[in-house]
């Protein structure tokens, strides 16, 4: 099964497809509670109650190119296999909050994976998106906001080679994980 950082990338695609201009990603590790929580909030078009009920079904999808949508079903399955759950809260016209909780120490819990690559991808390929990221591991807290970075860059693109390199190192330093 794929790692959690890829699921994060995948689920945020949903937010973008829903027309979100703001996405807040939270990754919270709580050793005491033995939980790993991934929460993705967006201001996209949202889903009505009927859709929220159906959306864990892999054969339910809003895309027109295929009749299968695996993003949410895969997370639903992997979370419930780890004593966890997937919660979907949405208000049409306002946005959606996806919360996936895993038992951190569960043997089947997918590794977090290359979070640096995921965050870097999200930041670089979506310059218009107001992307907020909070990573909390017990007492440690790392916060990133693309708005803040863009203010510092004052018009210089994220795709510039030196900026790419800075971003890569900045993320790697702050997300350094001794993960399996």
């Amino acid at each position, binding site marked *: 099964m*794929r790692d959690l950082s890829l699921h994060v*990338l995948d689920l945020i*695609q949903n937010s973008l*497809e829903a027309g979100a201009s703001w996405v807040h990603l939270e990754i919270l590790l709580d050793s005491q509670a033995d939980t790993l929580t991934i929460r993705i909030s967006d201001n996209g078009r949202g889903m009505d109650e009927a859709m929220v009920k159906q959306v864990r079904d892999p054969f339910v999808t809003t*895309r027109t190119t295929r009749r299968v949508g*695996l993003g949410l079903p895969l997370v639903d399955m992997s979370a419930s296999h780890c004593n966890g759950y997937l919660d979907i809260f949405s208000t049409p016209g306002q946005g959606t909050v996806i919360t996936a909780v895993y038992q951190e120490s569960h043997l089947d819990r997918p590794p977090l994976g290359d979070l640096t*690559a995921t965050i870097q991808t999200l930041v670089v390929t979506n310059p218009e998106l107001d992307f907020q990221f909070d990573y909390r591991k017990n007492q440690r807290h790392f916060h990133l906001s693309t708005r803040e970075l863009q203010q510092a860059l*004052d018009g210089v693109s994220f795709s510039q080679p*030196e900026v790419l390199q*800075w971003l890569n190192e900045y993320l790697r330093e702050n997300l350094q994980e001794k993960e399996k």
Partner: protein
Amino acid sequence: MKTVEDLKKLKEKLQAQKLNHSDEGVQIIVGMGTCGIAAGAREVLKAVMDEITKRNLQQISVRQTGCIGMCEKEVLVDVVKPGEPRITYGRVTPDRVVQILVEHVVNGRIVEELVVGKIES
């Protein structure tokens, strides 16, 4: 330790260097639907970003798109050079995207064997 202050210094350096600010850059668009991600789109994108850094390639805009339906041909990468038709490459891997960057983007030679046709829809 990298800080946001470093970014500000970088900005000053880069703004001083920029002679012509033109929006006419090359666009590289990577498919990031579930199919694309499962096929390794993130690693392909990483290879693109690494190559840009390594070769100091300027004026390249890296973007993503959703699933366009050719899931079996993922990872799909579009290259759009100003004034030229959009070329779609399929079954792209991190190694192949480096080849595409060097041959097509830098040297102007389309990598024929990796090109896929567009689906009529």
